[in-house]
């Protein structure tokens, strides 16, 4: 018996019509990238599911650990492929079940008969297999609703697939199947979650981070790199653009009254990010705004900030509570990185009080005295671009 295959069932994309093959191709690429360390894995994609093969059991186990974080997968099961005859199916079913602890567990047989020539119909086969299994595993308790062990048997023309466990996938759409955007990544708790949620909808992105050296440290950048690495685990290659923001920020402080400087800062950030978006042929901007959380996130502030661009601004957290955002951040592993205590560019120049209801005309008036657009173009062009997840050197290999 060979446990060398994983059957993957598609999520929402299985509802797609003509574009489906594009989605499937994307999913295949993402899975391949996520499993790139596993040398012997091969894949085959069909219209309704995908198969992963490897001869090494440890690589199969590793794949089972990695797959739940990849968007576009509804569920997956390690399966045994066998000859589609009743005797072989009976025998294989016992072996597959033998991998489980069966004592006192609830159990059900589920049969899918694609090959209608198979001599027994679905109901008969379920009965025959159920009886056969119970003879060998008398401890199992038959239960139709939500059984702990589901023996799944699928009869195809060429082969039968048998599994005893189905793992839940991450759902959503394959990352990259829904366009490319720019994520404004501060290093706080919210923006990584916003990125994650857009990934789930199939959006891939580059991240933009604003640094204000020498007031902010390399550690703040390292923190953002770590966040990008963590997000990349959900099946995407993420580029990080670090923008040298100090000069622009100092110009704002000089030019704009302090209670409006935050609004102008955000507007300039939007403009810079939009410039990067254009340069990278991306389609939208993603932010971690959550309505009413801070002064820059009131509807009035958002209006004033949004005024600088016609690009769609995606704000997946807009209606979420902080505690719910924190919960997701913890689940996806960015929370512990985000709470590292380094100042970022937003805390360096914090004014004593911010307007919660800034007026667009006023902001624009103060900005008009300085050639901010030139400065925006300048800092956007000075960005430093890296792919943090691909920096794999181990600093401590010799020491430890």
């Amino acid at each position: 018996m060979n446990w060398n295959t994983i059957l993957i069932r598609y999520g929402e994309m299985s509802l797609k019509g003509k574009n489906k093959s594009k989605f499937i191709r994307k999913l295949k690429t993402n899975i391949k990238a996520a499993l790139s360390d596993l040398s012997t894995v091969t894949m085959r994609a069909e219209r309704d599911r995908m198969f992963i093969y490897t001869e090494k059991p440890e690589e199969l186990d590793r794949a089972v650990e990695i797959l739940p974080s990849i968007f576009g997968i509804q569920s997956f099961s390690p399966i045994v492929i066998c000859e589609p005859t009743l005797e072989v199916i009976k025998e294989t079913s016992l072996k597959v079940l033998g991998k489980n602890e069966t004592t006192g567990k609830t159990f059900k047989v589920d049969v899918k008969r694609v090959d209608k020539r198979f001599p027994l119909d679905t109901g008969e086969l379920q009965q025959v297999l159920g009886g056969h299994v119970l003879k060998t595993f008398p401890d199992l308790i038959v239960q139709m609703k939500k059984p702990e062990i589901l023996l799944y048997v699928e009869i195809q023309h060429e082969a039968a697939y048998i599994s005893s466990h189905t793992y839940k996938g991450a759902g959503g759409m394959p990352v990259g199947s829904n366009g490319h955007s720019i994520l404004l990544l501060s290093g706080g708790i919210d923006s990584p979650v916003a990125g994650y949620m857009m990934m789930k909808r199939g959006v891939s992105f580059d991240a933009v981070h604003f640094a204000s050296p020498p007031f902010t440290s390399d550690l703040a950048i390292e923190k953002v790199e770590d966040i990008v690495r963590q997000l990349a685990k959900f099946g995407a290659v993420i580029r990080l653009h670090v923008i040298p923001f100090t000069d622009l920020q100092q110009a704002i402080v000089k030019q704009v009254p302090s209670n409006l400087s935050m609004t102008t800062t955000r507007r300039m950030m939007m403009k810079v990010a939009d410039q990067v978006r254009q340069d990278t042929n991306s389609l939208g901007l993603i932010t971690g705004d959550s309505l009413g959380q801070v002064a820059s996130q009131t509807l009035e502030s958002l209006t004033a900030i949004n005024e600088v661009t016609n690009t769609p601004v995606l704000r997946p957290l807009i209606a979420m509570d902080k505690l719910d955002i924190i919960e997701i951040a913890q689940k996806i592993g960015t929370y512990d990185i985000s709470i590292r205590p380094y100042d970022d560019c937003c805390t360096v120049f914090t004014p004593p009080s911010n307007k919660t209801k800034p007026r667009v005309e006023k902001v624009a008036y103060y900005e008009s005295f300085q050639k901010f657009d030139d400065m925006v173009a300048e800092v956007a062009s000075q960005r430093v671009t890296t792919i943090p997840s691909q920096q794999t050197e181990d600093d401590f290999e010799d020491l430890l």
Partner: protein
Amino acid sequence: MYFDHSATTKPDERVLRTFMDASVSYFANPASLHAEGKRTEKLLERARTQVLSAIGLELTEGIFTSGGTESNNLAILGYVYANQHKGRHLITTSIEHPSVLRVFQDLEKQGFTVDYLTVDQEGRISLDELKETLQDDTILVSIMHVNNEIGTIQPIEQCAKIIHTFPRAKFHSDCVQSFGKLSFAGFTDGPDLISLSAHKMYGIKNSGFLAYRKNIQLQPIVFGGGQEHKLRSGTVSVPHAAALAKAVRLLVEEVDLQQFQQWRNELVEFFSEFDECRVLAPNASAPYILSVAFAQITGEIAINFLQQQGMIVSTSSACSSKNSDVSHVIEAVGMPQKFEKGVIRISLGKDQTIEEIEQLKVAVRQLIELIRKGVGK
């Protein structure tokens, strides 16, 4: 010739080099905000991950301590204090290391109830007795993996299965003598907390580790700046942590247990030839510890004689060897009186050679002859 590796091991030179390099290049305080502090913190976290990954999948948290004693103290006191509202019944065995036993004795004075499991002649606890002793209000059971005096291996995984059927009971195991010498990728169903010590695995003294499951609540027993998950205050010695991680890795990569087993079998066979000798726990013990009792003489006379022949062995336990009384472990396994005071422990290490084993046999033969002549009476 050194046969006292269960008392301590000579540090591996590569471990010492790591300690030196880390001391020089990563001396900043890992709690500092500046870049040097951050680099040091990174090394500390890498060391932690490396140790945890050698321990296995279930114990995902861990802190660096000053050694096995502190790990044991923190595991027991820290867990009991943080969870005493759930129950006040505790279980351990009668053959634990003093860093466990004394803690339980102290807890008894504070009003906790402690049951001490008995052991058979081989030093093994009984699973039935464990089952019977567990109560609904038992919150902690502490059972060592390998006994430091006679080498008995306890059935840790079976213990864990039994203990975990009691929802309030958590399981601590002192793995100071076993880690890296019996199993690495731990137990499929195993303890909730385990203690390690660096100097038992060719590492540096005053350095240890306490690993525990994610959901385990502990309370600190040392207070201060809140370092090490707020459980062990005091500036963390990153060089010690790095050296411990290195020692663990070398063990994982290099240790050859079959060699120990083979030598031990030979020694058991050798000692069985003499009526004056009795091997303790010949069937139940770890492959690198062999305790032997001599009739008529004291352990001290035996080790002094062997030392003159160039062989370093110890009495049953280095930690308590200065007490003249019979050790609590030897008492617990129940020896005939004439053997009780004549116990020595031979414990093997990774750099041992077959020639050394042969020379030990020669020296022991001479000792036996002296006993037959009536020395020490």
